[in-house]
């Protein structure tokens, strides 16, 4: 491993030599990844064995990661309950309305998580393209279904609301993990590194704009970039992409379009200033989120003592649950919870880096990064650093299908951890 790093700085001659070697490794690797296909065609016995090995338990799963997940889930459900009970009481007539449902899905989710942790994540390799296809299909379907809250974001399954964008996020990570592990030698080329990302990202963004679901666009874009980055796409593309973003930003700012855009985006950044009556209404949720955070101060009003949840902050159980957390537990409590999230991200990425293969590494890091990314963007939304466009906080925000989805994804990470070379206690 080390010699390779050193080689990079050596003469052209050595580089040339090295490139030949790298080609060799790639060939080996490609052969390895197609081994299942070979196995299937070569041996019936092997296929029987494969079926039997639906669960591949090499060793135990990572206990610190599991612990962090459970801790966040418990705190999340408690805080969601605290944030929601006044709203539930006034709108549903039952203070426990959201708690009951969230608990049910938490149990289902945890079961799913454990189930999937035993599942051999390599099976996703084959399913990557299919899942991506399904995700696109659902993103299309949701557009033709009647809107809920004026947006095409959910598919009503009766017992829960399914967000196709949640599926899409997983599908993207899965696909790029698959792609990156298969074509990791060619990821530095435009054709294999950049083009597929554009081909997948652009239609996704278009579909999400039609929903609309802007914060999800931000997430899928960043996730795609992370996956490309991890997959080995050359840095110049990122520099170009970031440069383009900065350029667009500057142009918008200089021409004054940015202010206009910010106003259009539900008064982003202007929650505390009264401009127009409509704007005051639009920024209501963000403003009351800021009030809640400010009211909490350093130590908070105490668990259950939030006042902003008494209908001032609309739907406090959803995207803005963390504002109530800040109000009740204060900045100290909030920062502690963020620290737990940070640990989770750290542990997830550490596990993934020790995964036994590239697919596991990419998949695990992608799923973990998604959690971290979503936390960061959620915090930015509730603190009015980003426009209020609907991004939930993992483990905290109410939502059955997304909680189950999240826990299932954590199950995948746990599954990876079973095969990872890491101290799991």
């Amino acid at each position, binding site marked *: *491993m080390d010699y*390779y*790093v050193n080689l990079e700085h050596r003469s052209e001659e050595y580089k040339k030599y090295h490139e030949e070697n*790298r080609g060799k*490794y790639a060939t080996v690797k490609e052969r390895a990844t197609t081994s299942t296909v070979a196995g299937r065609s070569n041996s019936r016995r092997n296929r029987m064995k494969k079926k039997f090995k639906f669960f591949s338990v090499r060793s135990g799963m990572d206990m610190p990661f599991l612990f962090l997940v459970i801790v966040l889930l418990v705190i999340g459900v408690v805080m969601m309950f605290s944030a929601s009970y*006044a709203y539930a*009481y*006034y709108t549903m007539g039952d203070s426990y309305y959201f708690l009951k449902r969230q608990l049910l899905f938490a149990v289902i989710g945890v079961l799913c998580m454990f189930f999937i942790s035993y599942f051999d994540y390599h099976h996703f390799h084959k399913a990557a393209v299919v899942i991506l296809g399904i995700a696109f299909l659902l993103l299309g379907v949701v557009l033709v279904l009647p809107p809920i809250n004026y947006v095409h974001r959910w598919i009503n399954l009766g017992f829960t609301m399914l967000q196709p964008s949640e599926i899409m996020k997983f599908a993207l990570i899965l696909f790029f993990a698959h792609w990156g592990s298969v074509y*990791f*030698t060619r990821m530095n080329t435009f054709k294999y590194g950049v083009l597929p990302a554009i081909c997948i990202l652009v239609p996704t963004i278009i579909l999400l704009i039609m929903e609309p679901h802007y914060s999800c666009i931000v997430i899928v874009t960043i996730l795609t970039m*992370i996956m490309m*980055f*991890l997959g*080995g796409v050359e840095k110049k593309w990122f520099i170009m992409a970031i440069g383009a973003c900065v350029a667009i930003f500057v142009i918008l700012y200089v021409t004054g379009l940015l202010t206009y855009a910010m106003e259009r985006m539900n008064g982003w950044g202007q929650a505390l200033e009264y401009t127009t*009556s409509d704007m005051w209404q639009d920024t209501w949720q963000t403003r*009351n989120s*800021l*009030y*809640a*955070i*400010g*009211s*909490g*101060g*350093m130590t908070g009003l105490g668990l259950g003592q939030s*006042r*902003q949840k*008494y*209908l*001032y902050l609309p739907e406090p159980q959803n995207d803005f649950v963390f504002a109530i957390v*800040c109000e009740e537990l*204060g*900045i100290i409590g*909030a*920062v502690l919870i*963020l620290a737990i*999230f*940070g640990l989770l*991200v*750290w542990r997830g*990425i550490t596990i*993934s*880096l*020790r995964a*036994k*293969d*590239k697919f596991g*590494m*990419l998949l695990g*890091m992608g799923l973990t*990064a998604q959690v*971290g*990314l979503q*936390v*960061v963007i959620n*915090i*930015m939304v509730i*603190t009015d*650093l980003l426009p209020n466009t609907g991004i939930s906080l993992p483990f905290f925000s109410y939502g059955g299908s997304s909680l189950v989805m999240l826990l299932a994804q954590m199950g995948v990470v746990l599954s990876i951890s079973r095969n990872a*070379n890491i101290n799991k206690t």
Partner: protein
Amino acid sequence: MAKIGSSNMLYRRGMAVLLIILVLGFGTGVFRLVQLGIFDGEELQQRAVDQQLNDTTISAKRGTIYDTNGKILAQSATVWKVVMSPIYFKDDEERTIVSKGLSEILGKDQETIYEKTKESSYYVIVQRQIESDVKDKILEFIDKLEEDHGITGVVSLIEDYKRYYPYGEFASSVIGFTGSDGQGLEGIELKYDSQLTGTPGRLITAKNANGTEMPFKYEQKVDAEDGNNLVLTLDETIQHILEKYVDKGIEENKVINRAVAVMMDIKTGAVLGMAVEGGYDLNDPFTLVSHTEQKTIDALPLDQQNAAESAALSKQWRNKAVSDTYYPGSVWKIITSAMALQEGKITDQSRYNCVGYYVPFDGAQKVYCHNTSGHGEQTFDQALCNSCNPAFMMIGQSVGSAKFWEYYQAFGFSEKTGIDLPGESEDIFFSTDGSMQPMDLAVASFGQNFSITPIQMVTAVSAVANGGKLMQPYVVEQITDENGNVVESKEPTVKRQVISEEVSKYLSSVLEQNAQAGSGKNGYVAGYRVAGKTGTSEKLTYTNGAEDYIASFCGYAPANDPQVALLVYFDTPTGDSYYGSTVAAPVFSNIMSEVLPYLNVATQYTAEEIAQMDTTADNYVGMEAAAAKNNVEAGGFTAIVKGTGDKVLSQIPTAESRLPQGGTVVLYTDSDSVKDDAVEVPDLTGLTVSEANAVASQYDLNISISGSNSALEGISYAQDIPKGTKVSSGTVIAVSFEQDSNYGTGIM
């Protein structure tokens, strides 16, 4: 494990992603949370609390204003305010229901209310000051809204207070009135606003965003402290007397610029009455009293109407007694006399020769006396009784301008009196340092060309009467709290001793002479030893080409033990006469002759007065007719026996009635005679005393004389029982006499 080159890159890139997420992402989040929660926390918390707390003001009841005898002059009563929280309307249907219902109950335009329901506010006032009957209807309506339509929390009632002035157009300039928010706008209401207002209480409850209370109890109540009550020095009876006669004076003399009467308790400086007419209705202060003025304003172009109306209103509200200045005119001679006497410039030997004019210094213009043929050589007493201008110019010169200014200040003219009424004006003297030109001093000696306020004048004259002690005038004598405990009691304050006791006594006796027989005799009241001085000052302005004057009279009674001082002044009379002696003095006399008995001031008749006095009839009922007749005649009356009975059954006038010497007493001896006896009252006006008495006698009626003592020379102008009324014979008819207005001696 994939410990190969590409994994190495993946490892580095993975760590980079981790660092970016943790440091950049989480770092920004934490930074922002700390910024909001700790640095901006206080402001955000305040804004949150502002919306979470329901802060209801509990109105404090405004204090009551009483007159000195405890009669209520101003009082607050509970009324209600109808308010809406239109933010809670769910749809236009609800808005229509509520606006329709409210417009029916309140009699207001539905459109106007509907507009208010569109506002996105928690507090919109629909109607102020509704009375309890309307309140009950609103309460029913609120119940109905909830039961029939499920609309709650939209309409509510808030307790409020309304100010009532039981006497309406009475002492308006003194009492003042309050605005729509209960704040004092004029008079005592303004001056003592902080005392009267009290401290509003607050009820703070936590509420959710729908405005209903939160499940947890958070309530903080601060009770309202009702305002303090005021007891004025004003006496309702005296005030009414003042207003009655001032009104009459305004009407009779066609006064165009309002009039003032101020009565002061000499020993304390307490204002017993302050009439500034024409007053306005305190319950409706924003309506112009003067119809002609209203018409003038209505005729103006629209854009000027508002300004004109507010100017007219502020003029209407202006307390002329403290806010306006005037040239005091000859009344000022009291002050000039006081300073000269105190300085020893007037002795028994002092003589003042009046040739009809005076040249104050070489080369100066002649200054004429009102008596252009001259008063000749006069003593000081005569000069004052003649109100001789040349004599007073000489007296003024003997005092000198430096001393004049000194006394001017000592009598309190150079400063505000400090009376507890708003808007007091300052004097306007020739200069701010008191220096005067020789001609200034000359005309100032008889009260021309410098301006003072009426309250300053009556306060200074009170000091002359009060043994030289200048008192602090005041209107509020006591402040009590809501339970009647005395919070503050005003003690009379002596500002300074201006002149000596002796000078005060001597000047009083001269002023009494003046009121009895001098230029001020129209101000005389029999039996009360009135002292006083007339004044007719030139305003140096012109109305319809004629010069404007102020007719005033200032005096006090009784001269030997002064109790009350009174200044009356009429600004610009345009009737037959404009003299203080003819316009103001009779009003002074009329007021004093009612107020002094009311105050139980002991009468001190002179021998001459006793001779003219009415006597009382004895009781003759039950006596033998013949014996009764003898008794009646023995009492100095004329007896008329009616009926055929032996004994007197009834008599007119009844026992203890007052009737003039030689009046008629009718004795009835049977019941028929009582019934049948009726005479028609003749016209007794326009007659002298003896003529009136003669006419009355013809009809077997009696007269009683009222009016100034000079009635003996006067002409009757009114009778209490109108002509043509059927009365029993013997009835006493009160006839009022006054000086022939042509009698005016042209007193400057």
